[in-house]
């Protein structure tokens, strides 16, 4: 049986009494060790979900459980030991005056002993290739460098759950792939649960499951195959389909027989190669 890490049960939330609900009747589960992507149009409620998951906000109605623990004012410190988060804007997250202090500060807050702390700081900064910037002020970094440091900060915490809120949106394409691969390795090795909020469909394709948000509600939940087969519906929601599916569609227009569920690039390359061998 898959173990539930996070449960949202009929959650309602609004930022103040006079504004509309940012989340309406939202229910879903996140399972241990999975990579869950959350996609949806701007303002659909994705970051609000993230902030509820680590107790920065509380539901107006409904309940949230993290590893069985109900989310309340009393449990938020325990919950923040379980759920680490990288914010959409890294500037909101920096507290230290140097890159290494900044990563260390998070660890101090979580009561990690000094020796261990130094190891973890170096280790996580190396993982995101920022070990050359130890003494630079975080606010004096380029956009992509800031995002790398913010990610190092959460990796160092070694929480069971990591939430990435558009955490790689300003990395160059190669850098993005590398950082996401690093996160994937850690996830696989340590059985970490990853929740990734993203507008990058090529990244979403690689998730185990996706939640599609629309106007504060869950539109649907499923595997990438299930979700991207919705094609036109996704486009109506302000989303899109990934490159490989676009190519498959056009190949069909030119009379090539290709199955519609070819989501992964390598899969499609292999398939075309096989077609070529049969000729």
């Amino acid at each position, binding site marked *: 049986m898959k173990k539930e890490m996070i449960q949202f049960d009929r959650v309602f939330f609004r*930022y103040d009494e006079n504004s509309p609900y940012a989340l309406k009747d939202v229910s879903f589960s996140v399972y241990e060790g999975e990579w869950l992507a959350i996609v*949806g*149009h*701007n*303002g659909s409620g*994705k*970051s609000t979900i993230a902030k509820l998951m680590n107790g920065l906000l509380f539901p107006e109605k409904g309940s949230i459980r993290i590893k069985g623990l109900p989310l309340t004012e009393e449990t938020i410190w325990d919950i923040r030991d379980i759920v680490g988060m990288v914010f*959409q*804007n890294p*500037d909101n997250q920096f507290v230290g005056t140097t890159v290494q202090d900044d990563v260390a500060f998070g660890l101090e807050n979580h009561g990690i002993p000094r020796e261990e702390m130094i190891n973890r700081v170096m280790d996580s900064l190396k993982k995101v290739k920022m070990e050359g910037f130890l003494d*630079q*002020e975080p606010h*004096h*970094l*380029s*956009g*992509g*460098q800031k995002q*790398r440091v913010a990610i190092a900060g959460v990796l160092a915490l070694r929480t069971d759950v990591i939430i990435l809120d*558009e955490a790689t*949106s*300003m*990395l*160059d*394409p*190669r*850098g*993005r792939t590398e950082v996401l691969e690093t996160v994937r390795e850690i996830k696989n090795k340590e059985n970490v649960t990853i929740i990734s909020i993203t*507008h990058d*469909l*090529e990244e979403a394709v690689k998730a185990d499951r996706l939640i599609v948000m629309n106007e504060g509600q869950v539109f649907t939940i499923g595997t990438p195959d299930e979700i991207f087969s919705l094609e036109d519906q996704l*486009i109506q929601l*302000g*989303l*899109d389909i990934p*490159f*490989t599916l*676009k*190519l498959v569609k*056009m*190949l069909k*227009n*030119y*009379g*090539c027989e290709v199955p519609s569920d070819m989501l992964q*690039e*390598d899969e*499609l*390359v*292999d398939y*075309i*190669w096989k*077609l*070529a061998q049969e*000729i």
Partner: protein
Amino acid sequence: MEISTRNLEFKYHVNTPFERLALYDINVTIPPNSYTAIIGHTGSGKSTLLQHLNGLLQPTVGEVHIGDVTIKAGIKEKNLRPVRKKVGIVFQFPEHQLFEETVEKDICFGPLNFGTPLEKARKKAKKAAQQVGLSEDLMDKSPFELSGGQMRRVAIAGVLAMEPEVLVLDEPTAGLDPRGRMEIMEMFANLQREQKISVVLVTHSMEDASKYADHIIVMHKGTVYKKGTPKDIFSSPKELIELGLDVPESIRFQLKLEEKLQQSIGKVTLSIDELARQISVYLKRGSTSQ
């Protein structure tokens, strides 16, 4: 209006222990009525270069010509107002340019600051909000009580409302949903063509760079590595990949496929449709040749 740089060098925190060389030997020209994309990996100097295009940063060596204003290293340029009016910058992080109480006031700030009467400024704000797909019920909200993508739209609208002659965009689509991204990129392109303004776009999307720009500047470790048309730049994909950059996904896919097939399937192409056509021709040609 033309912008050009001559032997531009820039160091952050000069003469302090934190001194850092961010740009050197930069000679670029942004012609009037053009669309330039700047690509390069993290930390290569793109944002630093952009901030020279309207005098936010002053070179530590060399000069920048912005229309008929020259900004030289070591000489304090007093009147930058005309430059700020003509060259509008959308920053990499939208929060860095939002500060008013309401979204509407924020978008009106530029026009008001340059002497547009209130009513007219509000009209411009309304139009700019529409251009970026910002719904009207957000106009009275605080810009800090918005989602990331909504903030991005406000920041872009604020610059559009100033009707600049040069529109400088630092990763303007980061944080936008796929539809917003496409619509706003199309809007910039139309604006560029119709108003004959110049657009300078920093982007990590090789697809956008190849689709929209007439010229591409490739930055690498603080200097210009290469300049050219999208065709020039992306026709040597291996070189870009060695630089740690990427190529548009259609080219990347074609390279992967050709490696697997151990054979070329045709010319390198930037369009998915053309790629699909070439693959289908390749598969059919195979069948007739055996």
